[in-house]
């Protein structure tokens, strides 16, 4: 309602306004479609550049081209978890409902990114390593990350009271964030303990610029895709959780 107040001189007030569900809804409604257009453009350029223009790899031939999906997805899977945990922490510490909602909306996206990274990774593994799955340290920690997402989603959906569900899931996200590095390093150590050097990574040369540029474009595309989808999910979640408030009733 009064979100149009003049705020001059204070640099942090813009941040507080995002704590208001209504303001966030309007913001997401306004910027979501624009972000979607950017996502589409970035995906088209990145994919065309990566799949058609970029030269084939001297060792892996054309099969390396899955990197343009695989690496951004893997990166987003971890990035999303951090965002989710930070948002949940914001929600818990400052009792900002928006934090919880962003965290809850991020979780399925993160799980999807992780799944995507696992699937593309195993498809890539077949021509290069000769097998769909190895218990390589990175693959294993990515798998555990998927389990962490599943646990979070399951908990967030299991508790009936919305407020308790948000808070409980938030605690779990924070616990998971603390555990993530421990899991990562223990898995890495376990792998080196077990089998010495594995089949891992054919000595990958530092990437050529002609491949790097489309990869970076794909990174941007994945980020924008995340933002677009997050905005949509947050809007749905907001309408659901705030259905008893006046502004939602006016909206529908």
């Amino acid at each position, binding site marked *: 309602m009064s979100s149009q107040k003049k705020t001059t001189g204070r640099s942090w007030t813009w941040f507080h306004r995002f704590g208001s569900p209504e303001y966030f809804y309007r913001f997401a409604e306004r910027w979501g479609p624009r972000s979607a257009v950017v996502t589409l453009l970035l995906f088209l350029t990145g994919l065309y550049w990566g799949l058609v223009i970029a030269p084939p790899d001297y060792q892996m031939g054309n099969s390396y081209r899955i990197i343009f999906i695989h690496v951004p997805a893997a990166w987003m899977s971890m990035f999303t978890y951090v965002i989710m945990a930070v948002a949940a922490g914001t929600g818990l510490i400052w009792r900002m409902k928006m934090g919880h909602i962003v965290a809850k909306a991020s979780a399925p996206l993160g799980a999807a990114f992780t799944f995507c990274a696992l699937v593309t990774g195993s498809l890539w593994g077949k021509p290069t390593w000769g097998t769909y799955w190895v218990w390589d340290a990175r693959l294993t920690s990515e798998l*555990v990350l998927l*389990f*962490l997402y*599943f*646990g979070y989603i*399951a*908990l967030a959906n*299991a*508790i009936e*009271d919305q*407020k*308790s569900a948000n*808070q*409980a899931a938030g*605690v*779990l996200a*924070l*616990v*998971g964030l*603390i*555990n993530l590095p*421990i*899991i990562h390093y*223990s*898995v890495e*150590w*376990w792998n080196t*303990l*077990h089998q010495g050097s594995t089949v891992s990574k054919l000595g990958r040369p530092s990437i050529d610029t002609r491949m790097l540029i489309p990869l970076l474009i794909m990174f941007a595309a994945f980020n924008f895709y995340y933002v677009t989808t997050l905005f949509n999910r947050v809007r749905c979640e907001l309408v659901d959780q705030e259905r008893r408030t006046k502004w939602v009733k006016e909206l529908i």
Partner: protein
Amino acid sequence: MKSTRPMPADKTYIQQRTTTTLSSALWALLKRDLTIAYRHFGELMHPVIFFLIAVSLFPLAINPDPMFLQKIASGIIWVAALLSTMLALDNLFRSDYEDGTLEQLMLTSHPITVLILAKVATHWLVTGLPLIITAPLLGLMLNLPDSAYLALFISLSLGTPTMSLIGGIGVALTVGIRRSGILLTLVVMPLFIPVLIFGTSAVEAASVQLPFSGQLYLLCAMLIFSLSLAPLAIATSLRISLN
């Protein structure tokens, strides 16, 4: 409580009312939990029996050859101990939650984290300790080499309390949900992975007579880490669940 009128939450009033010291409160809690566990002696045996059955499934399903079993013994025992700990976890706060004891505990003037630590400790005494005692027997059945028993004992002694503490967070988060069995597993199992990795790796190293102190140090670090942080997380989670 004699007074029928609700008294104001005045600090001096609370101080007057709390005649118990922290240590006597802890002792009372410990004694109460142990007594309850002892009165349900049959229930007390459930994790151990589960442990035995789960381990004996592996030779039946995979291969009863002693040389083969020797190789996978450490993993089997540790996985079975993990599952058994997890199944036993559900009782940690459940009955106290249902009869309202937990709320009373939260209302005492004593620091809740310390009380929680006492509760987890008793729970470990009645579920974790029996596993540690039974484990050598299972090692015998799986033809575990003699050199591995010490590592098995120490790694389980460090690992099971860590799992109880980490698992306690999951229990506290799910205690308000009616049927939380599988959910608890989903929430807690990924967090157990580091403990499992170093536990098995210690036993495995010991069974081929390699030094295993490194893994034990890491297990010890995890125990101390969870001892210091898990009670805080459990307290927060319980507050959310009781709400």
